[in-house]
Every structure is written in structure tokens, then in C-alpha cells.
């Protein structure tokens, strides 16, 4: 069914950044990070232009640590980066302003949080080949302030009108429910708990693979819409029985403790005002008809 909301009142504003470069600490630091079992590893991680991982691909199984699919951008200083991270909404259009891909269009698919703080943008693979680190990208940010008619207790964050309009949903007993691929149990909430919910991401725990499989999370794909049980994300992410958050898987799994796939939370309500139902096809790559 169609969800109606205050679209006519929303303000569209430019936010921008440049394509980020992957980073490692300088010498004499070791290049290794530690896996949850203490094993040192050296693998590709977040940032940059990723040529062969896209939204819609598997979230697990890459030889990598929390990879951002597609292209990652950052603001040129912390204040601007915060504006970029908070106001960018999943589903917003991004435009390449400089370089050989100038004029190409992309779509915001995720945001990453503390220690990374980048906005993740999908561009078709052919476009990525023309892009350079440092290229400027503008996001037409549009969606902050969304209020769904008749469901004012659902707080929306980083959610564009374009995405809200295509999210599978139904209303039962007055509760607005959205289709989700799986539900993350509260005990598998990891990094991001207690941190801001206005931007950034909330990671699931993936060290205990059996627990992950039992919860039906081990086959998730990038872009899958997922529910997070007993989690209140109105002002930071935190535990609250009866609360529910809905997020989109934005970055891949990694070997570190607390850093399974990251989810960009787009909706939350504290007391059962937000519902979910299972829809195995709820993935933003298909919902937004993203071009491979």
C-alpha cells in the first residue's frame, strides 16, 4: 500500500564530499588489525572505489573488513563531513562534479560510523572505472524531517522519499509494518550501540557463526532491509524491550569483534508502533532498480 508523508514540506539541500582513500596507520605501527580470536590480519577495508563489490552482493564471505560497496566519500573537514553524513539519505541522488566521470549519477546506499564516517554511494561498475580518488561528488540530500501520516511515533532517519515509497509495507491493526529479510536479535547488536543514530551505522555481531546462522543472518546481502529487535534508535541506539528499528545492510562483514555487517538505521519506534514481516526480496538494489 502507499505510505503518505509530509513530502511537500521536506527541504532538499546540497551536501558534498570527495572520494575517500583507504587508510592505514603510519610506521612504526603494524599494518595488522586483530580478528576476534586475536589473529592478526591484513585485508582491504573501508573507503575508496571498490570495483567488484556492489549493493545486492553477499554481505559475508569476502576476504575483507567492513568493505563499503561502490564508492565512499567524506566531507573535507569534520564539520562538513558530519553534515554530509547526517543529511544524506538512503536513496538520494549523487552526482559526480569533477573528473572523467563528471555528470554521472549514483545513489546513496549506506553510511558508516565512528572511526570511518563515510557516505556509501552506488555507481554502475562502468562508471567506477572512470572515477578517481578525490573526485567531488554532490548529494542532493532530501528526506531529513520525514513524518509518516498517522504514524508520528515512527522516527525516520536518513530515509529518502524515493526509498520510503518503494519499501514493501502493510498496515495491520493500525501498526505500520515493513517487509524485512531477517531480524537481528538484540544480543547480536555490536559496534554502534550507544553512538549517534543520526548518521553512521550499527553493526551486528558475527564472531559466533552458529548464533548468526541460527538467527538467519548468515546469508544476508548488501542492501537487505532488516529489523533490529528491542532496539530504540531515536536518540542513539540502545536496548529497550518492545522497541524496533529497521535498517539497511550497508557494508560487509569483517573479522574484528563487534564488526559484522553494518546497518544504516532508517526507522525506529519505542513501543511497538513499528512492525515488520518477512519479505525475502526486500533489498534496496532491486527496490531502487539500481543499475549494475
Amino acid at each position, binding site marked *: 500500500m502507499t505510505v503518505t508523508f509530509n513530502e511537500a514540506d521536506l527541504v532538499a539541500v546540497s551536501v558534498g564530499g570527495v572520494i575517500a582513500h583507504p587508510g592505514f596507520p603510519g610506521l612504526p605501527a603494524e599494518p595488522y588489525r586483530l580478528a576476534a580470536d586475536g589473529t592478526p590480519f591484513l585485508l582491504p577495508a573501508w573507503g575508496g572505489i571498490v570495483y567488484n563489490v556492489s549493493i545486492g552482493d553477499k554481505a559475508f564471505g569476502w576476504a575483507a573488513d567492513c568493505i563499503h560497496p561502490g564508492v565512499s566519500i567524506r566531507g573535507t573537514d569534520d564539520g562538513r563531513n558530519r553534515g554530509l553524513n547526517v543529511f544524506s539519505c538512503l536513496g538520494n541522488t549523487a552526482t559526480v562534479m569533477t573528473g572523467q566521470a563528471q555528470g554521472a549519477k549514483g545513489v546513496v546506499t549506506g553510511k558508516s560510523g565512528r572511526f570511518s564516517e563515510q557516505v556509501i554511494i552506488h555507481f554502475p561498475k562502468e562508471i567506477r572505472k572512470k572515477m578517481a580518488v578525490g573526485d567531488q561528488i554532490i548529494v542532493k540530500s532530501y528526506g531529513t524531517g520525514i513524518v509518516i501520516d498517522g504514524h508520528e511515533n515512527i522516527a525516520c532517519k536518513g530515509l529518502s522519499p524515493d526509498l520510503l515509497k518503494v519499501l514493501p509495507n502493510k498496515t495491520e491493526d493500525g501498526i505500520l509494518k515493513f517487509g524485512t529479510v531477517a531480524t537481528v536479535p538484540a544480543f547480536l*547488536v555490536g559496534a554502534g*550501540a550507544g553512538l549517534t543514530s543520526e548518521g553512521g551505522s550499527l553493526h551486528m555481531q558475527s564472531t559466533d557463526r552458529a548464533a548468526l546462522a541460527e538467527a538467519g543472518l548468515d546469508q544476508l546481502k548488501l542492501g537487505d532491509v532488516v529489523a533490529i529487535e528491542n532496539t530504540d534508535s531515536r536518540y542513539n541506539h540502545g536496548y529497550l524491550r518492545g522497541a524496533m528499528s529497521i535498517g539497511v545492510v550497508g557494508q560487509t562483514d569483517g573479522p574484528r569483534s563487534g564488526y559484522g555487517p553494518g546497518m544504516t538505521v532508517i526507522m525506529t519506534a519505542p513501543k511497538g508502533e513499528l512492525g515488520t514481516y518477512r519479505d525475502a526480496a526486500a533489498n534496496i538494489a532491486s527496490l531502487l532498480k539500481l543499475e549494475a
Partner: protein
Amino acid sequence: MSAELGGLTSNAESLVAMAVCGYVSSPSLRPGHYTHHPDGKGVILPGMFGVTYNASVGDRAFGWAGDHVEPGVSIAHPDEKSDMALHYLSCLGNEATVMSGLAKGAKGTVTGEHARLLVAFPDEVNELLNIGDQIQIEAVGRGIALNEFPRIEFKKTSPKLLASLGLTRAGNGALKLPVAIELPIEIMGSGAELNSEYVDQDLMSGDRALMADLGIDQMRLGDIIAIRHADHHFGRSYREGAVSIAICIHGDSIMTGHGPGIMTLMTCHEGGIEFEVDPSANIANYFRIGAGK
């Protein structure tokens, strides 16, 4: 070693003691920086930094008109690398000495590690401390281990604390100790993004009814805490069967995803640690400091 270790032996004689230092901190705020309740209501509350005159280890962790209340004296080093050494080398129970100012020579005890290191001094010493006074710590405890339990990893545990925890060998061969409160894994929150050698992880106290139901709202600063299915070896993972032992180092918070701070002391995979609940399991009692004097 001694009977204090319940017949167990440690490598305490192999540990190296070295000096690290910090300076009494001063509260700092950003303009317009409200802290928000879960419903969004913004407030400004004291609790972090400085000398906290009226909250000590052994006092309640909940119910203060404060946020993240750091008991006693909060110290830091202005140079980042030196500050990290203060963080990574200091252990709970280490002796601290005031090196400058009116309280020069006074002795205290390290009681935890938040964004600043936390030290307990007697009240009369707190009255004499100035912002910037140098506090030196005889840091010893990194690398500590029990010879009989090589698979149990200790963090920030001084020989003094190790001898105070009431460690015994359980009938099934596991290491056993008293803890004041057991926490369910699903309420472990802010700090999940950090490595587990640095500071603490807050329990998430936002579900107030749950705090009361489980008696968590009776927690005291300095309480020894147990968490099942928490693997704190290298970060903080959910791992079925693991047990971590920790200590409450700071007070409750109104912020979503925050609450009293829980600093890791011991962690083990399946079957290595057992515990029994004893409300007196608190370092104020063990060290006869703060409210336990």
C-alpha cells in the same frame, strides 16, 4: 603462592612495575552540548572529569543527578601517547601518589579507567587537590596470569586485586569467584566499537523496568560483575559459553545505549570461569576504600 589466591599461583613475581602519570583533570563542556534522554529531552549534568567529592567506589551507581559519574579523581595526560600508556599500563588496584601541590605524598588507589583514569583518595586528600596536580601510578599487572588457568586472560588486574577477588577452584575445575551482579549480554552497549584493552563498555540502562526487575539498579560503583556469552579477548564479541568478569567503574547515564561503565578484568572461552552472586563483591570492601572504609 599465598593462601590469598585460594591455593592458586600467579606469575606476579615476573611482572614489571613502572611509573606512569596523569594530572587532575578539569570538567570540559562544548557550547550548547545537551545530553539527551531517550525521549529527546535535553539536559546538562555533571559527573565526568575533575575531583568528584561526594561519589566514591562503594556508593550507588544509579540515581545520581549526574551522567557517567566518575567516582573520586579523574586524571589524564595531555600528550596522547603518554595518555595511552597511562591507559594501557595502569591496573586496577595500583598505588597512586600525589607528586605535587598541597596533597603531595598522599596515597590513593586506581579504581578504573574511563576516558580518564580514575583514582580513589581519602576525602581529606580530595579537599587539597588542585586541577593539574600530578598523580603518579606504580603500574603493575599487565601480563598477569594464573599458572593453573593459562586460558583465562586477565586485563588491568593488579596483583593486589588478583589476591582480593576471592578466587577459588570450583568442583568442576573452573576458576570461581563472587560477583555482585550478573548482566545479560543483550544489554551490553556503548564501547562495543572499541578494543577491549581500552576503557569500558556501558550496560544499556534505557529499559528502566528491566533494570528494576533484575536488580541491576542496585549496582554500586566498584561492584564485580559477570557477563555470560561475552568474549572480551580482542574486542567485545558475542560468543556462546564465554564468560567475562568486569567491574563497574562509573555511574549510570540517561543517554540511549549508555549506563554504568563495565571494565573488563577477566575473560575466558567456554567453561573456564564460574561465579556466585554475593552483593558484597565490591572493591570498596576488598581494599577498604571509599564507602567501604
